[in-house]
């Protein structure tokens, strides 16, 4: 009855210290409309607080949303947040605002992973939104964040994670996730194939971390000018030399017998392992030797799944069996006297082993 007779034209609340409600911030980040946010808050029991009514809640939500919208411009270049004058926000709240703004849904990140962060992809956000149930507005924010971070650190020298942390003032954990996203976007790894669908963002982020730590230029050289985003060309080239492990029949047999000797009685799938050893070894070495081609680098994960993980899985290897196998598979190479590229082998297998172990699940 009241509303018929009057309407609110204007309603603002400005505190000397900017008033920020973290729950409402989350709703805003989630891309909720004001109406939905009010409904969600009511469902969460906000009306019990402080004798509020729906009108109060609406006013508060609108006001908070407006505040966040005003802050958004600053959040897009987080280094400005600390020395801007418009909002007086205590440092810990600034950190919270930034961190939360850059947080993302791993469901969403999983979808975008390895894709080119261009405008064309943005059109797909609608699809991603309907697939993951994430509100389009939130998808936009997350996508724009990826793009923004990517653009800034793409050309920067020095360690990727540190660069992200320095420019976006993010926590270590979040910066690592962004490093993974940037790394995947840069190398354009294939992650979208149906066979890779079972892998989560965290699986890939782990693998990315491994790749960044061991296979990039920055991994060997501690010189700061080096770039972290690209895999080391020289190393990839050297991987060709591993071919001898499968091409040389003697070496392959010797390798097999060494591994079998070590694993006999220790794994349940011994016979299956014995039968497929050559195939598995060939798969891993072939993947390595092909990495000089950009196309094959992109297919690294699908190759690992198709050529290694799936055969193991069909033979019902347990994760423990797999771990033992991989450990001995890579270590026994050291006893092959004819083999000279031990360092390259270790660098390769170290990453491959941890990636496979991470990826080996249902």
């Amino acid at each position, binding site marked *: 009855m*009241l509303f*018929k*007779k*009057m*309407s*609110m*034209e*204007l*309603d*603002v*609340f*400005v*505190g*000397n*210290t*900017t*008033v920020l409600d973290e729950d409402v911030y989350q709703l805003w980040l989630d891309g909720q409309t004001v109406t939905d946010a009010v409904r969600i808050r009511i469902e969460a029991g906000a009306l019990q*607080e*402080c*004798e*509020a*009514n729906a*009108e*109060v*809640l609406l*006013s*508060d939500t*609108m*006001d908070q949303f*407006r*505040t966040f*919208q*005003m802050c958004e411009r600053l959040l897009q270049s987080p280094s*400005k947040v*600390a*020395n*801007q*004058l*418009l*909002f*007086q926000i*205590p*440092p*810990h*709240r*600034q*950190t919270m605002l930034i961190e939360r703004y850059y947080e993302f849904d791993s469901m969403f990140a999983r979808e975008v992973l390895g894709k080119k962060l261009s405008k064309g992809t943005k059109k797909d956000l609608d699809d991603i939104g309907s697939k993951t149930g994430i509100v389009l507005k939130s998808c936009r924010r997350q996508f724009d964040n990826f793009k923004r971070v990517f653009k800034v650190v793409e050309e920067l020298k020095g360690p990727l994670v540190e660069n992200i942390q320095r420019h976006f003032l993010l926590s270590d954990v979040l910066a690592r996730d962004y490093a993974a996203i940037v790394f995947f976007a840069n190398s354009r790894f294939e992650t979208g194939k149906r066979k890779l669908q079972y892998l989560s963002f965290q699986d890939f982020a782990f693998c990315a971390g491994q790749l960044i730590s061991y296979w990039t230029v920055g991994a060997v050289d501690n010189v700061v000018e080096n770039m972290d985003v690209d895999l080391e060309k020289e190393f990839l080239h050297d991987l060709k030399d591993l071919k001898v492990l499968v091409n040389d029949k003697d070496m392959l047999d010797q390798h097999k017998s060494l591994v079998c000797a070590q694993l006999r009685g220790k794994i349940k799938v011994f016979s299956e392992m014995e039968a497929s050893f050559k195939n598995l070894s060939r798969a891993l070495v072939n993947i390595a030797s092909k990495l000089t081609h950009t196309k094959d680098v992109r297919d690294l994960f699908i190759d690992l799944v198709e050529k290694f993980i799936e055969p193991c899985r069909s033979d019902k290897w347990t994760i423990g069996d797999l771990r033992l196998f991989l450990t001995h598979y890579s270590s026994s190479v050291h006893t092959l006297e004819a083999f000279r590229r031990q360092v390259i082998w270790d660098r390769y297998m170290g990453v491959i082993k941890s990636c496979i172990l991470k990826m080996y699940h249902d």
Partner: protein
Amino acid sequence: MPGKLKAKIVAGRHLPVMDRASDLTDAFVEVKFGNTTFKTDVYPKSLNPQWNSEWFKFEVDDEDLQDEPLQITVLDHDTYSANDAIGKVYIDIDPLLCSEAATVISGWLPIYDTIHGIRGEINVLVKVDLFNDLNRFRQSSCGVKFFCTTSIPRCYRAVMVHGFVEELVVNEDPEYQWIDRIRTPRASNEARQRLIFLMSGELQRKIGLKVLEMGGNAVVGYLQCFDLEGETGLVVRAIGTACTLEKISTLPATATHPSNSSPSKDMKDSPQAAPSTLGCRSTHSSPVHSASSRLSQGFSVSVPTLLFAGMKPRHRSSEAPRARQCRPGFGEEAPGVPLSSGPPTPLRAQTFSSFSPSKSYSRQSSSSDTELSLTPKTGMGSGGSAGKEAGPLKALLRQQTQSALEQREYPFFTLTAFPPGFLLHVGGVVSARSVKLLDRIHNPDEPETRDAWWEEIRQEIKSHAKALGCHAVVGYSESTSICEEVCILSASGTAAILSSRFMQDGSLDTEHRLSRQPLCVFSTGSERVEGDMGSSASLGFEEVVPPGCGFCHIPYDELNIPFPAQLTYCYCCRRYKVPDVLFTTIDLPTEANVTGKGCLIQARLCRTKKKAQGEGNATAISNLLPFLEYELHTQLMNKLKLRGMNALFGLRIQISVGETMLLGLASATGVYLTALPSPGGIQVAGKTPSDITYEQHISNMQKKINDTISKNKELHEINPPEVVEEIIGSPIPEPRQRSRLFRSHSESSDEVSELDLSHGKKDAFVLEIDDTDAVEDIHALLTDSPTPAGFYSCNTEIMPGIQNWTSAIQMFTSVRVFRLNANLTNQGLNKIFSDLCENLLKSLYFKLRSMVPCCLCHLNFTVAIPEDELIQVAVTAVAMSFDKEQSLENGKQSGEKTLIKAITENDEQLQFNLELNAETSSPNPLSSPKGLSEVGSHPSARDRCSSWIEQLKLKAHTIRRGSVKTTSSLEKASPLPEGRSRSLRSNRSYSGSSVAVVKMTPLSFIPGAKIIKYLGIINMFFIRETTSLREEGGVSGFLHTFIAEVFAMVRAHVAALGGNAVVSYSMKECVFMENPNKNQAQCLINVSGDAVIFIQESELESTSVQTQSATTHTSNGGEGT
């Protein structure tokens, strides 16, 4: 030629992109003062230019230094076309002119554009070299300190309170100049901003001159306002209280530290010099322009609240307004009533003599063309007796102070809080209003007409005060409301009797002078004052009055009461008469004895009026005003009773005029004064011929009311006075029965005794519901929802019953505009307006729920009718957290007053002695050393400085008691609200951002902190306009950004002065206009306050015990800004 202004432009940052092609800016800066302009080099292609300019030097008169702002313009260099302005910074250099204030302005200041808002920041350095050539005949008043604070500033002591200063300057409004048609909105806005800066400077300089003439060195309670009259001009006016202040040095020994800047230094310690200044004062008190004759009279009412007490309002309502109403119509008859009952004041005589004896409406044109004379002068308060007082003792006192005050034209004080012993008695609220037509001003460019208007009103106020037996008006303020050509001028204050202690008086007897010499030094925190009170009493010119109740004692003669009131003997001292209800515009005196807690009480009223023009409109408004005022008071009184309280403080009645309606909003803080009698309930009385269902209805209503009253009493912890009496330990303990007896003796009114018999309840306030209006009223009464748990609210500085503030404070401004969609009746309007205010309050509570337990202090509502059918409500207040556990204990531990002993040892360092002082003086038989140590063991104490005292004591007792650890753990265990504990943690981990935190508060103090320096007044005026309203987030987005920008600019300027807080902050003007069809909006905001440096109390003592460290963390909390 006494000043050299130097400015240096260091750098810029976050500049906007001005060149789309390169995404960069080629910025340079113009520095202008007066007519001199300097330029920096162009710093090419950067959004963060480093100019690092030379020092630009301006050699100027100090008069110009006071009037002009330093204007810094940042521009983008363009080789081919005109340079684009990025924005401007105006710097008020006044703080640099006073040696006690800031010495340099240095820091990042926002670059502001009236169309785009803040566009980056500029780092500047500004200094002033002042040659101390003190020419007696100069036009400048450098060195006079200005304070918005309406009490003696915290680190000063008042040597002398000289009195009222006022000034008014007028100019053509640039928006209404012909040139405005051809210039850009930006140019027009900037012209306006600059003009107001200049006018404020000029006004301040002129007021300063008056202060110097009076022999003062400071203006306290400086209140500057704008009247945007429109076509007729732009008025900037200010009032304040001239004082001689002295800085309190940290060492008690050097109490009479000479303050170097003050040219009136010689005055300070020698009362002998007083006569010479008297001469000066007389010139001051009659400003040149005041000679204009008071031709006509506005409507005015004096409202000693007692008027309505214990009376049947219905009867009154029909009488009083009618009397007023008829007066403009029957001009000749009218004078009879009030004049017969009271001695004609000169004003009145004049007023009436100016009336032509012809018919009312012709009179207006004949008396003067420029003004509308409507004189619905009433007998509400002023109609009563203004006879001299009876008591011989009082008379003696009065003669003395009166002689001091009578020489002043206006014995007004803008202060709302006073040095102890200054405020003796309070009479009640006096107010006056007058309706004027702006288009009738003869010389719109000259201030004479407006001066005359205000003079009229002030005279009115003065006479009202006299009628209340008072010689002074305290808590005085003035305001206007303008709608088209109609302007309502309002003034209000509290009639009071003051001690002559801080006033100059040549005719004082030697005895007094002798006594005054030790007394004349008053410090905000000194034990000495307490002693003074005793000595003054012993000298015999004032009765010994327990200070906790003294101000409640009636100043008027009880046999000749100016209005019907019930008087009783004071419930504290039992010796003097007190009224049953007390309304005031001042803050609750710190020494007042209060039972329970206070709360915000608002009366809200809307009245429709017909659209009219010119005189007809003014007449209609004049006719409505008395009704409005009367009903607001009835509402206030009812709501006060409903809360079981008996006094209102900080009363502020705002009446706003629109084309089709009038809005009235009265806000005040209700309290239960222990000295005053317990308020009776509210009795509902029905129509005489009534049926059973009706009676049922009545009794239901009665029950509801009674329930509400008892609920409210519980909520506000108002215990029955019997208990209170025991606690306080009145010097003359009297059994309750006897006091009753006393009272019934004094109650001679038959009406009351009749009530007594019929309802068995004393002083019940009778509400007759003889019409639907009254039923509505009662419903309205009951709709005010109580504050949610954990919240308290008040519109005064301090909330009685809460002292243990944490340092978490949050100042905020909230603005709402409502559109009324339908043609509404008065009742409908009332309901909407009331709901609007209630909802706004609810929203505030909800917003600030993380600060619970907390109190919203200084809740200051401003209503306006920006357009037809629009209502705008703006609130500025501060939310302050307090410690719940302590406050609970508080109520029980009145024995804490004994803490005083600890203070005496260290009084000089203390900031809050004022309050403590008050407590010392209240006699306390309970005090014993034992109690002392007991109290000390609790981390709770009554005062803000309590923890400090605790600590002292703890220090003393540490070894013996070994209880320190326990205490601190207790303290830590107290559940801090989440937000606060979080900030606590973070503050340790983050060493601070690059932007200094600046606290803002409308109060004169910062809890848990000590103000160590006042850096000068902040007085800023901004205009913001947009032609892309939708793109900026609509009206709300636009205003939200603007207010945030204003805050940011205030903070930046304070930080540049070297300060870390603004106290006594207020948003005086917020004029919002929109035109959604054109996608446009414009807003004007004026803010003011005192820039200060404060240090956390905890930082004062570096060697702190653990108890203290607990407080330290909270007080450093980033949340509390």
